[in-house]
Protein backbone atom coordinates (compact mmCIF):
# COMPACT_ATOMS: atom_id res chain seq x y z
CA UNK A 1 0.00 0.00 0.00
CA UNK A 2 1.19 3.52 -0.75
CA UNK A 3 2.34 5.76 2.10
CA UNK A 4 0.69 9.10 2.85
CA UNK A 5 3.08 12.03 2.33
CA UNK A 6 3.87 13.90 5.54
CA UNK A 7 3.70 17.16 3.61
CA UNK A 8 -0.03 16.49 3.14
CA UNK A 9 -2.11 13.67 1.71
CA UNK A 10 -5.08 11.36 2.12
CA UNK A 11 -5.09 7.60 1.67
CA UNK A 12 -8.35 5.66 1.65
CA UNK A 13 -8.32 1.86 1.64
CA UNK A 14 -11.15 -0.69 1.91
CA UNK A 15 -11.84 -4.37 1.26
CA UNK A 16 -14.49 -5.46 -1.27
CA UNK A 17 -16.53 -8.52 -0.44
CA UNK A 18 -19.79 -9.61 -2.10
CA UNK A 19 -20.85 -6.14 -3.17
CA UNK A 20 -19.90 -4.34 0.03
CA UNK A 21 -16.86 -2.62 1.49
CA UNK A 22 -15.36 -3.13 4.94
CA UNK A 23 -11.98 -2.97 6.71
CA UNK A 24 -11.76 0.76 6.03
CA UNK A 25 -8.60 2.74 6.59
CA UNK A 26 -8.75 6.51 6.20
CA UNK A 27 -5.38 8.10 6.79
CA UNK A 28 -5.15 11.88 6.55
CA UNK A 29 -1.87 13.71 7.03
CA UNK A 30 -1.59 17.49 6.99
CA UNK A 31 1.61 19.43 7.59
CA UNK A 32 2.16 20.34 11.28
CA UNK A 33 2.10 24.07 10.59
CA UNK A 34 0.45 24.99 13.90
CA UNK A 35 3.24 23.29 15.82
CA UNK A 36 5.83 25.19 13.74
CA UNK A 37 4.35 28.49 14.94
CA UNK A 38 4.76 27.74 18.66
CA UNK A 39 7.32 29.97 20.35
CA UNK A 40 7.16 32.73 17.74
CA UNK A 41 6.00 36.29 18.45
CA UNK A 42 2.39 36.54 17.19
CA UNK A 43 3.13 38.98 14.36
CA UNK A 44 5.86 36.71 13.01
CA UNK A 45 3.63 33.64 13.24
CA UNK A 46 0.89 35.48 11.34
CA UNK A 47 3.29 36.51 8.59
CA UNK A 48 4.46 32.92 8.12
CA UNK A 49 1.04 31.30 7.73
CA UNK A 50 0.46 32.20 4.05
CA UNK A 51 3.98 31.08 3.18
CA UNK A 52 3.36 27.60 4.51
CA UNK A 53 0.05 26.72 2.83
CA UNK A 54 -0.29 25.98 -0.88
CA UNK A 55 -4.05 26.66 -0.90
CA UNK A 56 -6.37 29.24 0.72
CA UNK A 57 -3.49 31.42 1.91
CA UNK A 58 -5.75 34.48 2.38
CA UNK A 59 -8.32 32.50 4.38
CA UNK A 60 -5.60 30.91 6.50
CA UNK A 61 -4.01 34.23 7.32
CA UNK A 62 -7.35 35.90 8.04
CA UNK A 63 -8.40 33.08 10.38
CA UNK A 64 -5.08 33.48 12.17
CA UNK A 65 -5.40 37.26 12.35
CA UNK A 66 -8.92 37.06 13.79
CA UNK A 67 -7.93 34.40 16.33
CA UNK A 68 -5.10 36.64 17.52
CA UNK A 69 -7.46 39.61 17.63
CA UNK A 70 -9.91 37.58 19.73
CA UNK A 71 -7.02 36.79 22.07
CA UNK A 72 -6.41 40.52 22.50
CA UNK A 73 -3.51 40.78 20.10
CA UNK A 74 -4.09 43.03 17.07
CA UNK A 75 -1.74 42.49 14.13
CA UNK A 76 -2.08 42.72 10.37
CA UNK A 77 -4.90 44.06 8.23
CA UNK A 78 -7.93 42.19 6.89
CA UNK A 79 -7.85 41.21 3.21
CA UNK A 80 -10.43 42.76 0.92
CA UNK A 81 -13.49 40.50 0.67
CA UNK A 82 -13.12 40.02 -3.09
CA UNK A 83 -9.76 38.31 -2.56
CA UNK A 84 -11.39 35.76 -0.26
CA UNK A 85 -14.29 35.23 -2.71
CA UNK A 86 -11.71 34.75 -5.46
CA UNK A 87 -9.84 32.16 -3.41
CA UNK A 88 -13.09 30.33 -2.72
CA UNK A 89 -14.00 30.36 -6.42
CA UNK A 90 -10.54 29.04 -7.26
CA UNK A 91 -11.08 25.93 -5.16
CA UNK A 92 -14.62 25.34 -6.47
CA UNK A 93 -13.57 25.79 -10.09
CA UNK A 94 -10.51 23.56 -9.70
CA UNK A 95 -12.71 20.62 -8.73
CA UNK A 96 -15.45 21.43 -11.20
CA UNK A 97 -13.26 22.02 -14.25
CA UNK A 98 -10.21 19.84 -13.63
CA UNK A 99 -11.38 16.87 -11.58
CA UNK A 100 -15.04 16.21 -12.39
CA UNK A 101 -14.86 15.89 -16.23
CA UNK A 102 -12.56 12.87 -15.82
CA UNK A 103 -15.37 11.12 -13.95
CA UNK A 104 -17.37 10.83 -17.18
CA UNK A 105 -14.36 10.29 -19.44
CA UNK A 106 -13.75 13.87 -20.65
CA UNK A 107 -10.50 15.82 -20.53
CA UNK A 108 -10.03 18.40 -17.74
CA UNK A 109 -11.01 21.93 -18.81
CA UNK A 110 -7.49 23.23 -18.20
CA UNK A 111 -7.33 26.04 -20.75
CA UNK A 112 -10.43 27.95 -19.56
CA UNK A 113 -9.38 27.46 -15.94
CA UNK A 114 -5.88 28.78 -16.68
CA UNK A 115 -7.36 31.83 -18.44
CA UNK A 116 -9.64 32.47 -15.46
CA UNK A 117 -6.75 32.17 -12.96
CA UNK A 118 -4.95 35.02 -14.71
CA UNK A 119 -7.73 37.35 -13.46
CA UNK A 120 -7.21 36.65 -9.75
CA UNK A 121 -5.10 39.73 -9.05
CA UNK A 122 -7.69 42.43 -9.68
CA UNK A 123 -11.30 42.77 -8.56
CA UNK A 124 -12.93 44.03 -11.77
CA UNK A 125 -10.99 41.49 -13.87
CA UNK A 126 -12.01 38.68 -11.52
CA UNK A 127 -15.69 39.56 -11.79
CA UNK A 128 -15.59 39.86 -15.57
CA UNK A 129 -13.53 36.70 -16.05
CA UNK A 130 -15.79 34.64 -13.77
CA UNK A 131 -18.92 35.86 -15.58
CA UNK A 132 -17.30 35.11 -18.96
CA UNK A 133 -16.20 31.64 -17.84
CA UNK A 134 -19.68 30.68 -16.69
CA UNK A 135 -21.27 32.12 -19.84
CA UNK A 136 -18.91 29.98 -21.90
CA UNK A 137 -19.12 26.71 -19.98
CA UNK A 138 -22.49 26.82 -18.19
CA UNK A 139 -24.51 29.14 -20.45
CA UNK A 140 -27.95 28.30 -19.04
CA UNK A 141 -27.11 27.89 -15.37
CA UNK A 142 -25.54 25.28 -13.08
CA UNK A 143 -27.13 22.26 -14.79
CA UNK A 144 -26.27 23.25 -18.35
CA UNK A 145 -23.21 22.93 -20.60
CA UNK A 146 -20.56 20.41 -19.59
CA UNK A 147 -22.35 19.72 -16.29
CA UNK A 148 -25.49 18.65 -18.19
CA UNK A 149 -23.35 16.30 -20.28
CA UNK A 150 -21.73 14.89 -17.15
CA UNK A 151 -25.07 14.39 -15.41
CA UNK A 152 -26.46 12.49 -18.41
CA UNK A 153 -23.40 10.22 -18.65
CA UNK A 154 -23.27 9.58 -14.90
CA UNK A 155 -26.98 8.74 -14.85
CA UNK A 156 -26.57 6.40 -17.85
CA UNK A 157 -23.88 4.42 -16.06
CA UNK A 158 -25.94 4.19 -12.87
CA UNK A 159 -23.84 6.39 -10.60
CA UNK A 160 -25.17 6.98 -7.08
CA UNK A 161 -27.70 9.86 -6.89
CA UNK A 162 -25.35 11.61 -4.44
CA UNK A 163 -22.79 11.97 -7.23
CA UNK A 164 -25.03 13.98 -9.55
CA UNK A 165 -26.40 15.99 -6.64
CA UNK A 166 -22.88 16.82 -5.49
CA UNK A 167 -21.84 17.89 -8.96
CA UNK A 168 -24.86 20.20 -9.26
CA UNK A 169 -24.26 21.60 -5.77
CA UNK A 170 -20.71 22.51 -6.73
CA UNK A 171 -21.83 24.22 -9.93
CA UNK A 172 -24.52 26.12 -7.98
CA UNK A 173 -21.88 27.14 -5.44
CA UNK A 174 -19.86 28.80 -8.19
CA UNK A 175 -22.88 30.85 -9.30
CA UNK A 176 -23.61 31.84 -5.70
CA UNK A 177 -20.04 32.94 -5.13
CA UNK A 178 -20.03 34.95 -8.33
CA UNK A 179 -23.21 36.70 -7.13
CA UNK A 180 -21.55 37.45 -3.78
CA UNK A 181 -18.49 38.79 -5.57
CA UNK A 182 -20.54 40.96 -7.95
CA UNK A 183 -22.58 42.36 -5.04
CA UNK A 184 -19.45 42.95 -2.92
CA UNK A 185 -20.97 40.91 -0.11
CA UNK A 186 -19.04 40.73 3.16
CA UNK A 187 -17.09 37.50 3.47
CA UNK A 188 -18.47 35.04 6.08
CA UNK A 189 -16.24 34.80 9.15
CA UNK A 190 -16.34 35.15 12.92
CA UNK A 191 -14.31 35.06 16.09
CA UNK A 192 -14.58 34.54 19.83
CA UNK A 193 -12.05 34.70 22.62
CA UNK A 194 -10.88 35.74 26.06
CA UNK A 195 -8.32 38.53 25.82
CA UNK A 196 -7.78 38.29 29.57
CA UNK A 197 -6.65 34.70 29.15
CA UNK A 198 -4.81 35.46 25.88
CA UNK A 199 -6.77 32.84 23.95
CA UNK A 200 -8.86 33.24 20.84
CA UNK A 201 -10.57 31.32 18.06
CA UNK A 202 -11.85 32.30 14.66
CA UNK A 203 -13.49 30.78 11.62
CA UNK A 204 -13.39 31.79 7.98
CA UNK A 205 -15.58 30.34 5.25
CA UNK A 206 -13.79 28.38 2.52
CA UNK A 207 -14.96 26.35 -0.47
CA UNK A 208 -14.86 23.23 1.69
CA UNK A 209 -16.46 24.61 4.85
CA UNK A 210 -15.36 26.55 7.92
CA UNK A 211 -11.61 26.87 8.46
CA UNK A 212 -10.90 27.35 12.18
CA UNK A 213 -7.85 28.61 14.03
CA UNK A 214 -7.36 28.45 17.80
CA UNK A 215 -4.58 30.43 19.44
CA UNK A 216 -3.17 30.54 22.97
CA UNK A 217 -0.55 33.13 23.82
CA UNK A 218 1.78 33.21 26.82
CA UNK A 219 4.37 35.83 27.68
CA UNK A 220 3.96 37.53 24.31
CA UNK A 221 4.58 34.40 22.26
CA UNK A 222 2.51 31.64 20.68
CA UNK A 223 2.01 28.84 23.21
CA UNK A 224 -0.45 26.85 21.06
CA UNK A 225 -1.84 27.27 17.55
CA UNK A 226 -4.34 24.76 16.18
CA UNK A 227 -5.62 24.74 12.61
CA UNK A 228 -8.85 22.81 12.10
CA UNK A 229 -9.64 22.54 8.38
CA UNK A 230 -12.81 21.07 6.83
CA UNK A 231 -10.70 18.23 5.44
CA UNK A 232 -9.74 17.22 9.00
CA UNK A 233 -13.41 16.83 9.91
CA UNK A 234 -14.58 15.28 6.63
CA UNK A 235 -11.94 12.58 6.70
CA UNK A 236 -11.71 11.83 10.41
CA UNK A 237 -13.13 8.40 9.47
CA UNK A 238 -14.97 6.68 6.61
CA UNK A 239 -18.49 7.78 7.64
CA UNK A 240 -18.78 10.60 5.10
CA UNK A 241 -17.53 8.38 2.30
CA UNK A 242 -19.85 5.47 3.14
CA UNK A 243 -22.87 7.80 3.16
CA UNK A 244 -22.15 8.75 -0.46
CA UNK A 245 -21.78 5.20 -1.87
CA UNK A 246 -24.40 3.28 -3.86
CA UNK A 247 -26.13 0.41 -2.06
CA UNK A 248 -24.59 -2.27 -4.29
CA UNK A 249 -20.99 -2.31 -5.54
CA UNK A 250 -20.85 -5.06 -8.19
CA UNK A 251 -17.05 -5.34 -8.52
CA UNK A 252 -13.84 -4.08 -6.89
CA UNK A 253 -13.29 -1.76 -9.87
CA UNK A 254 -16.76 -0.21 -9.56
CA UNK A 255 -16.29 0.04 -5.81
CA UNK A 256 -13.02 1.89 -6.28
CA UNK A 257 -14.65 4.31 -8.71
CA UNK A 258 -17.53 4.90 -6.29
CA UNK A 259 -15.16 5.57 -3.39
CA UNK A 260 -13.11 7.96 -5.51
CA UNK A 261 -16.25 9.89 -6.39
CA UNK A 262 -17.36 9.98 -2.76
CA UNK A 263 -13.96 11.41 -1.82
CA UNK A 264 -14.29 14.02 -4.59
CA UNK A 265 -17.71 15.00 -3.23
CA UNK A 266 -16.15 15.55 0.20
CA UNK A 267 -13.38 17.49 -1.54
CA UNK A 268 -10.12 17.01 0.38
CA UNK A 269 -7.64 19.87 0.17
CA UNK A 270 -4.74 17.43 -0.24
CA UNK A 271 -3.86 14.84 -2.92
CA UNK A 272 -5.58 11.50 -2.36
CA UNK A 273 -5.28 7.86 -3.29
CA UNK A 274 -7.99 5.18 -3.16
CA UNK A 275 -7.24 1.47 -2.89
CA UNK A 276 -9.84 -1.30 -2.90
CA UNK A 277 -8.65 -4.86 -2.38
CA UNK A 278 -10.64 -7.94 -3.34
CA UNK A 279 -11.30 -10.21 -0.37
Amino acid at each position, binding site marked *: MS*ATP*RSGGLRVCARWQEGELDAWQVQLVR*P*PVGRALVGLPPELALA*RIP*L*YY*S*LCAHAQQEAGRLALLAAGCAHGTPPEAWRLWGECLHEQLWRLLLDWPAQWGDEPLRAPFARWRASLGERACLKAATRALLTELLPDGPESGFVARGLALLQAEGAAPAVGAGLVARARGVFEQLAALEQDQPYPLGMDGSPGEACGAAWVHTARGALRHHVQLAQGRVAEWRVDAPTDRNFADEAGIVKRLPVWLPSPARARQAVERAVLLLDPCVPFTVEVVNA
Partner: protein
Amino acid sequence: MCLAIPTRVVELLPDHQALVDLGGVRKAISLELVDGVVVGDYVILHVGYALTRLDPEEARQTLALMAEAGLLEQALGDAREGA
Protein backbone atom coordinates in the same frame (compact mmCIF):
# COMPACT_ATOMS: atom_id res chain seq x y z
CA MET B 1 -3.74 22.12 2.38
CA CYS B 2 -0.34 20.83 1.57
CA LEU B 3 2.88 22.46 2.51
CA ALA B 4 3.77 25.15 -0.07
CA ILE B 5 7.31 24.01 -0.80
CA PRO B 6 9.15 26.08 -3.41
CA THR B 7 10.39 23.60 -6.00
CA ARG B 8 13.01 24.41 -8.65
CA VAL B 9 12.28 23.94 -12.35
CA VAL B 10 15.24 22.17 -13.94
CA GLU B 11 13.98 21.43 -17.45
CA LEU B 12 11.10 22.50 -19.66
CA LEU B 13 9.36 19.64 -21.46
CA PRO B 14 6.93 19.60 -24.40
CA ASP B 15 3.17 20.14 -23.87
CA HIS B 16 3.47 22.60 -20.96
CA GLN B 17 5.29 20.08 -18.80
CA ALA B 18 8.46 20.57 -16.77
CA LEU B 19 10.87 18.61 -14.62
CA VAL B 20 11.28 19.89 -11.08
CA ASP B 21 13.83 19.04 -8.43
CA LEU B 22 12.68 18.56 -4.87
CA GLY B 23 15.58 17.74 -2.58
CA GLY B 24 17.35 15.77 -5.31
CA VAL B 25 14.21 13.98 -6.51
CA ARG B 26 12.99 14.89 -10.00
CA LYS B 27 9.42 14.65 -11.18
CA ALA B 28 7.34 15.88 -14.10
CA ILE B 29 4.70 18.50 -13.44
CA SER B 30 2.24 20.56 -15.49
CA LEU B 31 2.83 24.26 -16.19
CA GLU B 32 -0.59 24.74 -17.78
CA LEU B 33 -1.88 26.97 -14.98
CA VAL B 34 1.10 29.34 -14.73
CA ASP B 35 2.60 31.47 -17.50
CA GLY B 36 6.19 32.47 -18.11
CA VAL B 37 8.05 29.83 -16.12
CA VAL B 38 11.70 29.41 -17.13
CA VAL B 39 14.44 27.03 -16.00
CA GLY B 40 15.74 28.16 -12.61
CA ASP B 41 12.38 29.53 -11.44
CA TYR B 42 10.76 28.09 -8.36
CA VAL B 43 7.11 27.03 -8.31
CA ILE B 44 4.61 26.01 -5.65
CA LEU B 45 2.97 22.68 -6.53
CA HIS B 46 -0.44 21.18 -5.92
CA VAL B 47 -1.45 17.72 -7.18
CA GLY B 48 1.02 17.81 -10.06
CA TYR B 49 0.31 21.37 -11.22
CA ALA B 50 2.47 24.44 -10.68
CA LEU B 51 0.24 26.92 -8.85
CA THR B 52 2.50 29.94 -8.37
CA ARG B 53 5.84 31.13 -9.69
CA LEU B 54 8.40 32.52 -7.21
CA ASP B 55 11.64 34.31 -7.87
CA PRO B 56 14.73 32.48 -6.58
CA GLU B 57 15.37 34.88 -3.69
CA GLU B 58 11.78 34.66 -2.41
CA ALA B 59 11.97 30.88 -2.72
CA ARG B 60 15.26 30.68 -0.83
CA GLN B 61 13.82 32.73 2.03
CA THR B 62 10.73 30.52 2.25
CA LEU B 63 12.82 27.35 2.14
CA ALA B 64 15.03 28.71 4.93
CA LEU B 65 11.98 29.48 7.09
CA MET B 66 10.53 26.02 6.49
CA ALA B 67 13.85 24.39 7.33
CA GLU B 68 14.11 26.44 10.53
CA ALA B 69 10.57 25.38 11.49
CA GLY B 70 11.39 21.71 10.88
CA LEU B 71 8.77 21.40 8.14
CA LEU B 72 11.09 20.81 5.22
CA GLU B 73 12.95 17.76 6.41
CA GLN B 74 9.79 15.66 6.59
CA ALA B 75 8.58 16.67 3.16
CA LEU B 76 11.95 16.08 1.50
CA GLY B 77 12.16 12.73 3.23
CA ASP B 78 8.83 11.80 1.67
CA ALA B 79 9.99 12.87 -1.77
CA ARG B 80 13.12 10.71 -1.49
CA GLU B 81 11.18 7.71 -0.17
CA GLY B 82 8.69 8.02 -3.00
CA ALA B 83 11.36 8.26 -5.71
